[in-house]
Each structure stands twice: as structure tokens, then as C-alpha cells.
């Protein structure tokens, strides 16, 4: 019920429709990774997925933002099904992610770590590489989120009604012998490429 309201509001203000270009929406284990420029990213990507996939897909969200305040926390945990992580490290920041993957579920990841202000995504953090190495069965799907920095930039109070889309690119996989920096750069390029197809 709350999920439907959130989706209706999202559609009305910022659209948030999906473009499945490199793959189809399928019920298999996936790690969706996308560029990050707005707090709306999580909601847009979540809303772009079909309903049945939403139930088994967990956005990875920063505890210092989504864990704050009871409303945000409620939306993150109960509506978005999010997995909260500590950005400042801790013992193993990836532990909650592994737990979700071990359960056979999918993840939504923003490998830049924090919201960028540039048109192109910044350097990816290493978490994606570690998960790719540890969970070879999970498909890695690059997603490009368009217009979010204009619709809801850092520091804005309300999202402006500008249509945002989530473009899903073709899956990538960690190649045998591929180094971490090479893989992370290739993943970053895949996100950019997903946004370029018309």
C-alpha cells in the first residue's frame, strides 16, 4: 500500500521508467550497479523494477542517511527493502550485503559510494569487485540513471518534476585474471555506455 503510493508519487513527479536495453527483467540473482548523483537514485531504480523483482531486490543504502529519523528508516527498511551499510567501514562493511546474496536475493549498488556532481560517474570503490569475485553466479547489470542530478541535486529540499529514467545495460562479469582497477574501470564504462543508447 505505502509502496504503491510511493511509486505513484515517483511516477507523477519524476517518472522513473525503466529502459531494458541490454537485458530483460528476469527473476535471477543480480547485482544492479548504477551511477549516484541524488538521494532519489535508490527510489528511482527500485521503482523501475517490476513488482515481483522488487520483493527480492535490496537497495544498498547508507546508514548515515537512510537510517536517520523514523520516517526515512521506515521507508528504507519496510518499503524499499533496503540493506543499510556503514560508510565509515567497521569490521566488514560488506557483511549485510553478503547476507542478502547468501539468501539468494539481488542487490542494488552505487559503487561510487557518495553522490557525485559530475556528469560522468567517479571512480568506483572496491566492494563491487569483491562481490563479483565471491559471487560469480550473480549477474552484474550496469544501470545508468539519467537526469537525477537535475531533478534532485545535493542540498535540494524538494525534487523538481524532471523525468528520470533507468537504463539497464548488458550484464558484465569479472574476467579470469582481470585486475581490480581494470574491472572497476570497465564496470564504470559499462554504466556510462548504458546511458548512451538512445
Amino acid at each position, binding site marked *: 500500500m505505502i509502496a504503491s503510493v510511493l511509486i505513484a508519487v515517483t511516477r507523477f513527479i519524476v*517518472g522513473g521508467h525503466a529502459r531494458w536495453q541490454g537485458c530483460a527483467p528476469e527473476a535471477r540473482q543480480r547485482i544492479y550497479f548504477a551511477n549516484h548523483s541524488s538521494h532519489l537514485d535508490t527510489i528511482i531504480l527500485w521503482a523501475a523494477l517490476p513488482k515481483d523483482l522488487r520483493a527480492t531486490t535490496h537497495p544498498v543504502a547508507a546508514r548515515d542517511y537512510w537510517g536517520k529519523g523514523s520516517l526515512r528508516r521506515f521507508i528504507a527498511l519496510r518499503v524499499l527493502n533496503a540493506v543499510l551499510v556503514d560508510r565509515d567501514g567497521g569490521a566488514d562493511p560488506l557483511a549485510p550485503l553478503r547476507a542478502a546474496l547468501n539468501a539468494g536475493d539481488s542487490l542494488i549498488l552505487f559503487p561510487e559510494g557518495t553522490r557525485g*556532481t559530475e556528469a560522468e560517474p567517479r571512480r568506483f570503490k572496491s566492494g563491487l569487485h569483491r562481490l563479483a569475485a565471491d559471487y560469480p553466479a550473480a549477474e552484474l547489470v550496469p544501470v545508468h540513471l539519467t*537526469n537525477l*542530478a*537535475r*531533478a*534532485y*541535486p*545535493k542540498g*535540494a529540499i*524538494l525534487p*523538481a*518534476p*524532471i*523525468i528520470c529514467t533507468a537504463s539497464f545495460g548488458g550484464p558484465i562479469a569479472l574476467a579470469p585474471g582481470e585486475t581490480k582497477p581494470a574491472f572497476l574501470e570497465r564496470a564504470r564504462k559499462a554504466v556510462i555506455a548504458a546511458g548512451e543508447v538512445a
Partner: protein
Amino acid sequence: MTDEMIVLLGGVFALLLVASCAGFVLARRATSEGARATVANLNDRIKAWWAMVAIFAVAFLVGKEMTLVLFALTSFFCLREFLSITPTRPEDHRAVAVAFYLFIPLQYWLIADGWQTLFAILIPVWAFLLLPVLAVLKGETGDFLPRTARIQWALMLTVYCISHAPALLILKFPDYAGQNFLLLFFLITVVQLSDVLQYVFGKLFGKHPVAPRVSPSKTWEGLIGGGLAATGVGAGLWWITPFAPWQAGAMALAIVLAGFCGGLVLSAVKRSLGAKDWGTMIEGHGGVLDRMDSVSFAAPVFFHLTNYFFAM
């Protein structure tokens, strides 16, 4: 609901019924690949027309407030489409948000309130001055003039211009009290019928494009044939307006010409932004603004002509 309204809506429904039947027959007879695509698009358009007419009919029947809400939503969707494909920057966010959340409701509230003087200057004066101030506070000077101009243009076309259609409801004419809805019906019918008839005449006889680089589908044959037919229908609707038959014809001609210019200018804007359609919201037509481009030019022209020559 007046007797005239029943007759008019009945007429529109009859017209749509004929169009749907024609579309059905054409779909059976289309043989080539190209013809099938054209007919499929035609039938999508006709289906969308049913929905649009139904929405308008309900708003008209419920009354002024509902009609204003409908036009405000139309402006909202048009502005959203316009700004979504216009390269604004994150630094423009505040100006864009204020355009949506302040100026759309305010502009339509002024019509509801009947405050005609402020309605006429709100966006050309107050928004014009306020929006660049909001953007300049962010300190980003790159592309400042084009960025400011884009937002102002978007607001003028999609909110200010379109709001002149329902603003017809606040004009006062001698011996015409309570009938302004008919005038709004007259405007919308002539604009949209002109678009449809230009499309039909263009498809049937179109050879010489008016501005091939801007819009290859707009032809002289379509403009003249469709425009004259729509003018004729407008003249025939004189009995629902405060005009004499020849005046209704002249008004319809002004609407047709302004609407054509609107379609052409907005096509050029669209092309300069690298898009073919404004959006995907209306099946077969493209975006809402693809349907409202002619209204955005025709509404202010018709509003001011009627206001100047006929209103009290």
C-alpha cells in the same frame, strides 16, 4: 449541463465513432508494411482521442474548478516534458522547482479568482525577474543567459500561454452570461480539429512541405485544406459563440493560423533539442506537448482578440 453542451458533446462522440469505424476498415484494407504502420498509428491516435475527449467532457461537466485543475495538470505535464529534454543544470534546480510548485498553482488560482491584471503579468514580469535571481544565487555563471532563457520560455509556453484557454471563463460578454464554457469548447475544437484535418489533408494530398527542415509532415496542401475546413467548421459553430457567423469564421481562421505557427515553432524547439517527440505519455501522439503545441499559440491570440473586440 446546457442543451447546447449535450448537442456538442454528442457531435464530438459521433465524430469519434465515425473515425473509429474508418480506422477499423482501413486496418483491414492496409496491405503494405508502410500502410499498416500508418494505420496502426492512426488507430492509436483515435483511441487516445477517446480518452482525451472523455477527460475534457468530465471536466467541462463538473465545472470551472475542475476545468482549471485539468488545465493546470496539462501545464504541469507540458512543463515537465519541456524541461526534461532541455539541458538545465543542477544549479537551476531552485528556479525549476519554483516554476513548478509556485507559478503553476498561482497562475491558475488567479484565473479561479478572476484577477485578470495579475494573471496577465505574473509570468512575463514576476517570474521573469524572480527565476534568474534564484539561479544567480547559486553562483554558477556558465551558460547563464541560455539557461535562464530556456526556463522562461518553458514557463511562458506551457503555463502562461496554455492558461489563456481556461482564462476565457473569466471574460464577460453582453448577453452571454454563464456560457463561457462554449467559447472554450469553440477554441479547443477548432485548434484540435485543425490539427487533425491538416494531418488528414496532408496524408491524402500533401506534396509541398512548408518548412521541410523543421517539420516534413506539415505541407501546404494540409495547411490550406485542413485550415479552410477547420475555419468552415468554426464558422458553422457561430451559434455557440457571441460572434456573428463571419466573425466566428474569422476567429477560427486566426486560431488555425496561430495554431499552425505554434506547431511549427515548437517543432523547431524540439529539433534544436534533438528530440522527435516531447514525450511518450499519449499513445500515437507522443507527449502532451505534442498535442498542446498549437493550443499554446492559439489560446493567447484567441483570448486577446475576443477580449479586445467583444468582452465588456
